[in-house]
């Protein structure tokens, strides 16, 4: 991380810009290429690993954007928590972790058309709009203080609501995923019939 205060002279300014560019292209290539792998990979485990590399590259980009706390949160919560949850889901829901479902040809064609159209539109828009660029203050030191004060000041209500949301999600997920042990005989028979039918179809 190149600290802005160290880059006082013009020469070190230029080298700082070069270093930032190199780091940007490294992280961007990492996340972009693995995002493309997420689309193209037919194996769900490989998809999850590619998603992990995408998230790590994004964390590096957050560092470059002077958002150290967000980068740490990205690594800890996203790469460390959410993705592990997803991988647990993969393990719990596939008979074989390498099972694959092939999309139909027409679906692939439609998806490629939509994706190329939207990316072209977005890229054209981005390169043609004159963005209002505010140069950040030269000695802006990212302060955790400011972030904490903002979370408990201007953003207090969404902060508290998100804690309630997490509680609700915990209860809801536990209720949804709990094992159904005490089934009445009738509905247990129905469930068994349904699973037999499902096995026949698969």
């Amino acid at each position, binding site marked *: 991380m190149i600290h802005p205060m160290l880059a006082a002279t013009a020469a070190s300014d230029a080298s700082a*810009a*070069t270093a930032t*560019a190199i780091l940007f292209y490294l992280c*961007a290539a990492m*996340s972009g290429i693995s*995002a493309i792998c*997420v*689309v193209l990979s037919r194996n*769900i485990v490989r*998809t999850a690993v590619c*998603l992990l590399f*995408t998230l790590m590259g*994004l964390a590096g*980009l957050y560092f470059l*954007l002077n958002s150290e706390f*967000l980068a740490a*949160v990205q690594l800890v*919560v*996203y790469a460390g928590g*959410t993705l592990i*949850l*997803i991988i647990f*889901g*993969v393990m719990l*829901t*596939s008979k074989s972790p390498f099972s694959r*479902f092939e*999309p139909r040809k027409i*679906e692939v064609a*439609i*998806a*490629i058309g939509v*994706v190329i159209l*939207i*990316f072209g539109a977005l890229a054209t828009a*981005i*390169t043609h709009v004159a*963005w209002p*660029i*505010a140069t*950040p*203050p030269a*000695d*802006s*030191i990212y*302060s955790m203080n400011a*972030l904490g004060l903002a979370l408990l000041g201007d*953003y207090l209500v969404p902060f508290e609501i*998100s804690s309630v949301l*997490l509680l609700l*999600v*915990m209860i*809801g*997920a536990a209720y*949804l*995923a709990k094992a159904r042990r005490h089934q009445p005989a009738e509905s247990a028979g129905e*469930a068994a019939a*349904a*699973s037999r039918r*499902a096995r026949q179809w698969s």
Partner: protein
Amino acid sequence: MNIGLEHYLVLGALLFVCGLGTILLKRNAIGILMGVELVLNAANLNLVAFNRFAHAGTTAAPALDGQIVAIFVIVLAAAEAAVALAIFLNFYNNFSSIDVERAQNLKG
């Protein structure tokens, strides 16, 4: 070789279309969830890039709105993943498959 706002926005657009393609192409429900995560991350990258380049604030009071919204997005994504996985586990228990093409009736 200055890295500006456009570079980050183009990368965000790439991540977004990758997520969209994942949602459209995967038939595994968890694959679709991964596509949603990619889309959310693309939005996060745009938020943080705008926070850095377009609305930087002053030295005394740096603008942090984009970063804080991104933090809330991460919290919501974690919550969404937990609920979605619970639903998928239920679905798998009922149909013994995770293929979304099986989800065709409301009362499984």
